[in-house]
């Protein structure tokens, strides 16, 4: 069983965020190693949605984390914020539009587009598939890798996007939709190849059927456990999410977790969960897209 902490932040200013991150780490008994020199932080950047949508990590949250790292490890630690190009998102614009370029200038940290980083290829299996994963140099050389995901629904069979799925975004190959027929396995394979040390969820605003200010900070060293907890908050049964089960089977972590801090139920009741109507509408739209009907009718 792995520890997952839950901390409530009522008003997300910088000092309170920093304190909440510290509290979430204390609750899981996490201690930084002073010998860490190169740190990679992977926020969730998704398309050009800004943080208020709950789809992307708030740069203020990452700024607070940087303050924590410099206080706890060293003011001189080398920090890189990493992301890669995706099918519909270019890092050069996402960094600017989502506020990370300004953050990098103000905090003197590096912004790394992993799609432009040198890489080595790792051969990894997950389930019945084997993958050639490009592992970028910045990820290889980081002695502390911190994942800062969001909690959000997705229409794909994977149902929820959180810690494990966010690491999928470290895959430098931009045409990520090509993995979608075996997305669950690809997510697990990439996590096996990159192996992040710490996962801190920015749940200040979450994205369910709509955004909601939940004021949640979660932390764990176990991505499977934290994803199971996030799925429960979002009203999903983690046992029905195949890639979480596969991640456990492949040794990435435990599906069972120990709740530290605020009770999970407190956040679960407030999460903007799907209802029958939204489930049916999503299903109908998904069928229309898959069958090409939506394109024919000009609904896309």
């Amino acid at each position, binding site marked *: 069983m792995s520890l997952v902490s839950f901390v409530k932040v009522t008003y997300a200013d910088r000092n309170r965020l920093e304190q909440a991150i510290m509290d979430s780490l204390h609750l899981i008994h996490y201690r930084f190693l002073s010998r860490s020199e190169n740190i990679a932080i992977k926020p969730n950047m998704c*398309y*050009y*949605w*800004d943080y208020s*949508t709950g789809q992307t990590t708030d740069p203020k949250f990452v700024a607070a984390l940087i303050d924590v790292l410099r206080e706890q490890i060293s003011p001189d630690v080398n920090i890189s914020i990493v992301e890669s190009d995706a*099918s*519909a*998102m270019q890092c050069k*614009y996402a960094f*600017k*539009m989502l*506020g990370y*370029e*300004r953050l990098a200038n103000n905090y003197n940290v590096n912004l790394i587009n992993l799609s432009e980083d040198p890489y080595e290829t790792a051969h990894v299996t997950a389930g019945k598939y084997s993958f050639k994963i490009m592992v970028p140099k910045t990820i290889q050389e980081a002695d502390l890798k911190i994942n800062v995901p969001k909690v959000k*629904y*997705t*229409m*794909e069979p994977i149902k929820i996007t959180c810690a494990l799925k966010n690491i999928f975004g470290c895959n430098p190959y931009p045409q990520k*939709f090509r993995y979608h027929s075996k997305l669950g396995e690809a997510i697990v394979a990439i996590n096996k190849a990159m192996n992040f040390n710490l996962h801190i969820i920015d749940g200040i605003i979450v994205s369910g*059927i709509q955004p909601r200010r939940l004021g949640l900070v979660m932390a764990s060293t176990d991505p499977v456990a934290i994803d199971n907890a996030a799925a429960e908050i979002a009203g999903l049964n983690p046992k029905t999410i195949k890639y979480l089960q596969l991640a456990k089977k492949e040794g990435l972590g435990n599906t069972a977790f120990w709740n530290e801090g605020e009770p999970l139920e407190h956040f679960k009741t407030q999460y903007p969960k799907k209802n029958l109507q939204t489930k049916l*509408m*999503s299903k*109908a*739209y998904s069928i*229309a*897209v898959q069958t090409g*009907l*939506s394109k024919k*009718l*000009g*609904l*896309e």
Partner: protein
Amino acid sequence: MERIRLGIIGLGYIGKIHLRHCQKLANAKLVAASDLSKKALKIANDAGVKKTYPNYEQLLGASDIDAIIIALPTHLHTQCAKQVAEAKKHIFLEKPIARNTTEAEEIISAAKKNNVKLMTGYPLRFSPAFRKPKERIDDGTLGEIEIAHATYIGSGPFMHRAEAHTPLPVPEWWFNKKLTGGGTLIDLGSHLINLLRWYFGEITNVRSHLGYRFNLDFEDSATCIAKFEHGTLAVINVGWFSQSYHLKIDLHGSVRSLSANHSPSNPISAVIQTLTKGYSKFYEGHFIELQHFVNCLIKDRPPSPSGEDGLRDLEVIEQAYGNQIRIDQP
């Protein structure tokens, strides 16, 4: 009855909408289409367009085309429209007519010189929701309009679709101010400025405040305050910053107030509307404007909004860009 033979250049987002609507036009037939994308040309072929060309200059040479719909990125309007005019084809040109007034004047002059009709595409003027206020203004029901508010907020080129569907890549030209001529003010603002000019006449003075939420070198929001020749004062709000779509006008007259808005139908209604009428209610204005263009060609009347209308809108926009106010500084 004469049948107008149409060609279309550019099959991006708006071009594909026109392509679909052309199938339903009375007294017109879409005979040719051009786009750099093979995928887009296949869509045109599948829609029954016999002649497709990767290079629009090949399309201009076709003798069986009377008029051409230009739905290209803004920076390509001038060169293309001039070539279309020289090929003696009538022009339906998407808004904004050009990146700036100099280019707009070149287009108008080319159309005049070659004696071809030129219409600028502004679908709001044809949308039933916004035609009704025009009737109420003109018949005096509202009295004299003292204050107007016009708001058009959406995602602009950062096209979001419903929850968790794959977002669309943003074409590179949208990020280049030199190619677009500006941000949301020229893109969405041109719609509202054109509509309000149709309602109230010419704008005598305009000031703007521009917003940059996304830290780009072009504005993603703008608020303009405009004075019209007959005294109406309008506040115009446009933005690309939202995931939702909101298009609304509020008119406050000395007798009555009136509001009108335009919003997407839910997907099920849109499917039913498209199957029954050939277009969804959301795009009704786009369909009617094309039909108006065709009708004007048949009856040999000048289409409206004209090229000059598009030019006037750009003059206002240029004035607004040059007349900015800063309220975030004391």
